[in-house]
């Protein structure tokens, strides 16, 4: 039986509160499904499961605060097999496979009670599907029995149900391009949203507000799930905004204190001429609709992620020794208007096209501020970028997020007098800084890293 445990959503997390379960015993789950909403000192996080199976027991109830590593739920590792073909009831199965199965069968049906011949054939097909899917189908008003499944063995998948719902509604509702893009990213069906735009069109805010994830952040029910043993400590819901902010401040303080205590930082800075990047951006945005434009931070993020390939000592984790990371998940420091900062990751930043990266950054900033992040985003940035320059400082020398080993800071773009080739010119420039861990690299390599970011930003068309 598998265990689903309280994940560590960052080096500073010691415990988390299960705010809401999105599954119940008997539900089939797949790797990557969001199964619970957990609140930490820093934020509310949609927690994904990394094992497929069927939920057996919810061990920890809603509202309970438990340490990292605590078993939250038990799951049986295999999805329940569809009802076995009746031993004697000529099923249309190919005989090649059916025969060995029957030979191996003796103990199994006997132990569990042999299926009554003929019964399986009369079961409604909906019985074959997970409760989650049945629920979805009911919501969307789709008859599962009439859907042709595209999953393994003809199983009906979530996509099948959603597609059927779309077909049923005739055509997709009127929607803005940004709304469509957001919906595609979020896996939200536009048809399921209530449009508030002109003529009832679905616009971006409807997607953001109506996305299924948004429901997950609703005030959690006060009642504890029946499976929950033990007392109910002060719940996340009971915490006021002020308390939350105090907790966030404390969490940031603890993590930064640890960073400064343990990580021997070194700091470098360099001035980068971003004229090529801003010119390219201006041209690129001319061809893009209002809703599809790029911003400079996208180029900065991409250049940082790509530069890691040349200087891998900047990307990874230091625990007992430095472990470089193959993948580049750039953490983006996002300031929360109510105070505080969090730095969730954009996965595989180095491989994303600029438009995809823009969409993801846009989505991430929105969700970070709404307090709806996913567990994987919180847990695994491999390097962090902070872009305080947007708020008017020339340079930021950041504090590394343990267990990461580097943080890149970009200051504001200002026009500066630049001498080049014996000529003096006025160019848009910014100061890029690097805070890096001396246990993982030296200043020489750090300098190389900043130089590589500079080089990449001179050829924005290749980013």
């Amino acid at each position, binding site marked *: 039986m598998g265990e689903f445990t309280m994940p560590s959503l960052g080096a500073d997390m010691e415990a988390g509160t299960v705010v809401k379960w999105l599954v119940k015993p008997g539900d089939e789950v797949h790797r990557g499904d969001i199964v619970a909403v957990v609140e930490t000192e820093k934020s509310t996080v949609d927690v994904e499961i990394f094992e497929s199976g069927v939920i057996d027991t919810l061990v920890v109830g809603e509202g309970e605060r438990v340490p990292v590593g605590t078993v939250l739920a038990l799951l049986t590792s295999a999805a329940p097999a569809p009802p076995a073909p009746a031993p004697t009831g000529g099923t249309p199965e190919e005989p090649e496979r059916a025969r060995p199965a029957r030979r191996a069968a003796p103990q199994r049906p006997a132990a569990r009670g042999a299926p009554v011949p003929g019964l399986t054939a009369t079961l409604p097909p909906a019985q074959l599907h997970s409760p989650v899917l049945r629920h979805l189908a009911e919501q969307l008003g789709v008859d599962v029995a009439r859907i042709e499944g595209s999953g393994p063995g003809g199983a009906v998948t979530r996509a099948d149900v959603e597609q059927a719902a779309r077909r049923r509604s005739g055509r997709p509702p009127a929607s803005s391009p940004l709304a469509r893009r957001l919906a595609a990213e979020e896996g939200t069906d536009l048809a399921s949203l209530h449009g508030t735009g002109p003529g009832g069109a679905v616009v971006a805010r409807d997607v953001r507000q109506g996305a299924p994830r948004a429901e997950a952040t609703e005030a959690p029910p006060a009642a504890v799930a029946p499976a929950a043993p033990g007392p109910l400590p002060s719940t996340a819901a009971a915490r006021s905004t002020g308390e939350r902010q105090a907790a966030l401040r404390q969490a940031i303080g603890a993590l930064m204190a640890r960073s400064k205590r343990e990580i021997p930082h070194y700091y470098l800075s360099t001035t980068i001429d971003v004229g090529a990047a801003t010119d390219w951006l201006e041209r690129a945005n001319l061809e893009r609709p*209002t*809703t599809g434009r790029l911003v400079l931070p996208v180029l900065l993020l991409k250049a940082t992620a790509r530069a890691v390939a040349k200087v891998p000592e900047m990307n990874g984790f230091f625990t007992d020794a430095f472990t470089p990371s193959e993948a580049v998940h750039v953490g983006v420091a996002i300031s929360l208007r*109510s105070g505080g900062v969090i730095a969730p990751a954009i996965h595989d930043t180095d491989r994303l096209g600029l438009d995809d990266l823009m969409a993801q950054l*846009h989505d991430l900033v*929105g969700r970070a501020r709404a307090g709806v992040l996913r567990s994987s985003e919180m847990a695994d940035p491999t390097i962090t970028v902070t*872009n305080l320059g947007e*708020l*008017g400082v020339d340079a930021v020398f950041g504090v590394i997020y343990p267990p990461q080993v580097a943080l890149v800071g970009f200051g504001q773009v200002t026009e500066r007098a630049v001498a080049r080739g014996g000529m003096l010119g006025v160019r848009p420039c910014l100061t890029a800084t690097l805070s890096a861990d001396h246990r993982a690299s030296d200043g020489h390599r750090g300098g190389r890293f900043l130089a590589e970011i500079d080089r990449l930003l001179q050829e924005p068309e290749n980013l």
Partner: protein
Amino acid sequence: MNDDEARQLIRSTVRQVAPEADLDQVGPDETLQEALDLDSIDFLNFVVGLHEATGLEIPERDYPQLSTLDGAVSYLTAQTGGG
């Protein structure tokens, strides 16, 4: 779109982009981005919000005209042919 409608639209768009921001504290000639602590993504959301409500394609070169409350009001009224 007249002056009041434009002002109303800007107000509701800012509220969507930055629910915590208080437009009442911002003077008519102050830079919205600085006064409301909007980063480039927030500002883009602001422009997209105006675009979605009015249908106007707002080119990047016009962004400076949207930088203050009064500037944005005159831009919207002029572009929508109201006034």
